[in-house]
């Protein structure tokens, strides 16, 4: 089928308004949250599972790769149409189909924005906890496909823990309905879970059944300043060892503190090696408060130079201000950044941060580190400038050194962003060849022609050398026509 024929076939499914094919439109879908850029051949915006299935059948027949896309906020390159293909924009499938109070579940289409779902269920006294930083723009479908996390996941778990059921369109256009409104379900393989975190490589998620919790009525927050990073790490362990499971234990290292202070000018302690933000929630204000005060006391005993406890919601917002400013502060810091997402056993956090600092010095980059201290998920951000000659090669070396340090300490490559294109060449190092081979067999069984999201997740080169330079970089995409 030629391009015109394909456009007509897709328009017959989704209507003229749902096919994007003109040069500028292809450019609009060529980017995501990374520094890559590749043009799709076509983009289609379906509005129902049936339309997605029909689109997949057309693409499969034509042998065109399919790249599913929610809001295109991937931090690993998962939605970049490397080598072209058909981008399936699911943003129009954004209906909350049902909030079922009696069963404590929500049924949503894949394109529902996470924050909108949260607002809707909170209005009913319910709670959907996963809170990726992108929650105001990213979609549930994308969150499921990357198994997104967030600060609250320490206590409440990641997206996976809320997925009870999925509707998935397979590579041959069949529609698979998996699981349902059931908290317990041990009938067959847990197939719905197979698609969680699959990054669009196994099928297109079109609908999701999500578990909801009762909304906690109270929350309280504290902020602790640590002159020494090791003390902050000891405090985290002491808190979790004291029988408290907080909502969040967020860490900012010294460089992050300084980057934020340069931006915010809020009087943050530039000398401190670490800031910890501690939060608890629950239904009984006394119990919530007691937990936060106990956490504050532990911090004080273990070397915090200052501890603040927020007395009200406004105070709470003030304490979170520094953490929320990390993204804008980094955004303004340099031209490009590579936001990594490693995980280490939480006791290894100080050692990991020290190694990152050493790597930064060695390769000449600022690498602020922040993240979720309670679960060992850290975000070292390499700040760089693509325009400088030889820059990307140095970024590669620094990033590889960070990955290897994490693996050495018993950690892994990514906690919540996914592998995408950015980390695929390290997959074998992280998992071992046998696990990668099992993954390949699963992929082959579900998508024998390899149409779903090619060039993602699986290693393509013999080694990691040149793993960023081989990617299609921002500002180099040539439009047709």
């Amino acid at each position: 089928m030629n391009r015109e024929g394909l456009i007509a076939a897709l328009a017959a499914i989704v209507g003229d308004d749902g096919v994007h094919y003109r040069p500028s439109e292809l450019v609009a879908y060529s980017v995501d949250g990374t520094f890559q850029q590749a043009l799709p051949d076509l983009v289609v915006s379906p509005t129902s599972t049936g339309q997605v299935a029909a689109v997949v059948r057309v693409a499969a027949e034509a042998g065109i790769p399919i790249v599913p896309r929610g809001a295109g906020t991937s931090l690993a390159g998962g939605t970049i149409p490397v080598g072209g293909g058909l981008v399936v924009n699911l943003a129009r499938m954004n209906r909350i189909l049902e909030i079922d109070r009696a069963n404590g579940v929500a049924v949503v289409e894949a394109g529902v924005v996470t924050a909108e779902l949260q607002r809707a269920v909170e209005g009913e006294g319910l709670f959907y906890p996963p809170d990726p930083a992108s929650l105001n723009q990213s979609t549930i479908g994308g969150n499921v496909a990357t198994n997104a996390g967030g600060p609250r996941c320490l206590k409440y778990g990641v997206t996976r823990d809320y997925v009870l059921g999925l509707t998935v369109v397979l590579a041959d256009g069949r529609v698979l309905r998996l699981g349902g409104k059931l908290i317990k379900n041990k009938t067959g393989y847990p197939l719905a879970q197979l698609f969680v975190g699959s990054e669009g490589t196994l099928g297109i998620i079109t609908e999701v059944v999500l578990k909801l919790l009762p909304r906690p009525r109270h929350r309280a927050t504290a902020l602790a300043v640590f002159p020494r990073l090791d003390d902050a790490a000891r405090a985290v362990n002491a808190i979790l060892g004291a029988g408290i499971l907080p909502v969040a234990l967020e860490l900012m290292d010294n460089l992050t503190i300084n980057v934020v202070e340069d931006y915010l000018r809020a009087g943050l302690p530039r000398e401190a090696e670490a800031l910890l933000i501690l939060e608890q929630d629950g239904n009984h204000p006394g119990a919530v408060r007691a937990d936060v005060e106990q956490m504050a006391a532990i911090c004080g005993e273990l070397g915090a130079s200052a501890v603040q406890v927020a007395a009200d919601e406004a105070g709470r917002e003030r304490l979170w201000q520094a953490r929320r400013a990390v993204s804008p502060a980094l955004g303004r810091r340099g031209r490009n950044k590579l936001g990594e997402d490693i995980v280490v056993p939480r006791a290894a956090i100080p050692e990991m941060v020290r190694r990152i600092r050493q790597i930064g010095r060695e390769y000449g980059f600022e690498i602020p580190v922040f993240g979720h201290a309670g679960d060992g998920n850290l975000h070292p951000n390499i700040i760089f400038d693509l325009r400088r000659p030889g820059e990307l090669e140095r970024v590669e070396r620094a990033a590889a050194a960070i990955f290897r340090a994490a693996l050495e300490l018993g950690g892994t490559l990514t906690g919540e962003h996914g592998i995408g294109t950015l980390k695929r060449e390290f997959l074998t190092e992280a998992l071992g060849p046998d696990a990668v081979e099992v993954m390949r067999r699963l992929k082959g069984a579900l998508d024998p022609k390899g149409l779903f999201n090619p060039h993602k997740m699986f290693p393509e080169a013999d080694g990691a050398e040149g793993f960023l330079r081989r990617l299609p970089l921002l500002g180099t995409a040539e439009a047709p026509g």
Partner: protein
Amino acid sequence: MTAGADLRLLREEYDNLSACIRCGLCLSVCPTYQVSFKEEEGPRGRIAMLKALVEGHLGLTPDLVEHELNCLVCEACTAICPAGFRMEPAQVAFRAALPDGVPRAVRFGLEYFLGDLGRLRRLVRLMALGQRAGLAALAAQLDLFGLRRLGRFLPDLPASFIVPRGQVWRPAAGPVRYRVALLTGCVMSTVFAEVTRATVRVLTANGCEVVAAAGQGCCGALHLHSGLLGSARRLIENNVRAFDPDGFDAIVVNSAGCGTALKTYDHFVPGSRAAAIARKTRDITEFLDEIGLVPPPGEVPVVATYQEPCHLAHAQRITAAPRRLLRAIPGLRLVELAESALCCGSAGIYNLTRPAFADALMARKVRQVLATGAQVVVTANPGCYLQLLAGLRAAAGDGRPAVEVRFLVELLDRAYQGAARPVLTEAGR
């Protein structure tokens, strides 16, 4: 395709365009994205397209022009951007590069009527006559200019205008606290002359001596957003001559869009005088909030909701002051409007040039306004006022708005005049 287009200004925006980190947060607030869910109708896509244009990867194709001109320049993306990207200068530079970015009739209207307020006054007087003679006649008359849509947006026109000749209005009693210059503007001195009179009364009730500096004209905001940089510069230079920043404590503006323009005059005209004007410019709501509002004595017993003008909320980042002023009006109950900071689709002359998006946004806004149960929807910008009026008129079906539309300063004026005047017209009750 790129031939004939002068991309020099856009090239100067390359660093601004490169600030985008593609996080997509802007999608959550972009009105055209929120009604289309198309990346090419969102800020991140528009930035990628403009960047590709500058890099030479894209030509100035009709599709690119369409998607860029669909931008309302509401600045919601600029206000939320974590990386400091600014949409307005990028769009102004892009539009300036288009040989025919504005329909000829619109360009004529902007340059002929707003370039010379005497002509504008004659036009509005003609329209007022037409309005009294019946709307059908008016519509026919307007069609002469190819602007049939305009008829939907016309409010009741005043019998007399404000012609700035250096008039001075003084407080009726008490000392003069501040001496301010008032931008009388183009539509604000003609179509909305009564609102500007109310502005003067509110300022004098707050101890201000108000001067309508002679020689001032249109602020040039509409010309800037249409990429008519030459005419915009002439208007800006004229106002820089007319306002002596050293002679006043503030230059007060009662139209959010014009205030935004004045606050950026120094970007378009060099020199310390333009910069001083930019520094001294205050929106009327910002100014009254800053100086401490004299508590109004009269009651205005209405349920009101507030629609934020984009150029107040996003461009000038003024969101708290208007609400504080409304709450200071005795008897007025303020109910929040869902999506109050989402553009209503007016966006200057956008509702005339890009009707599809403008109408979709208007319909969405009308639904939200009606859902509040408010009797009055308050705003602070002529474009928003006209768009809300047109939408609410259409919603009522009988030509009378389903909910009364008012400028914030009109309600303040009522409150200073006491209960002598009826608060609502028949339809608003």
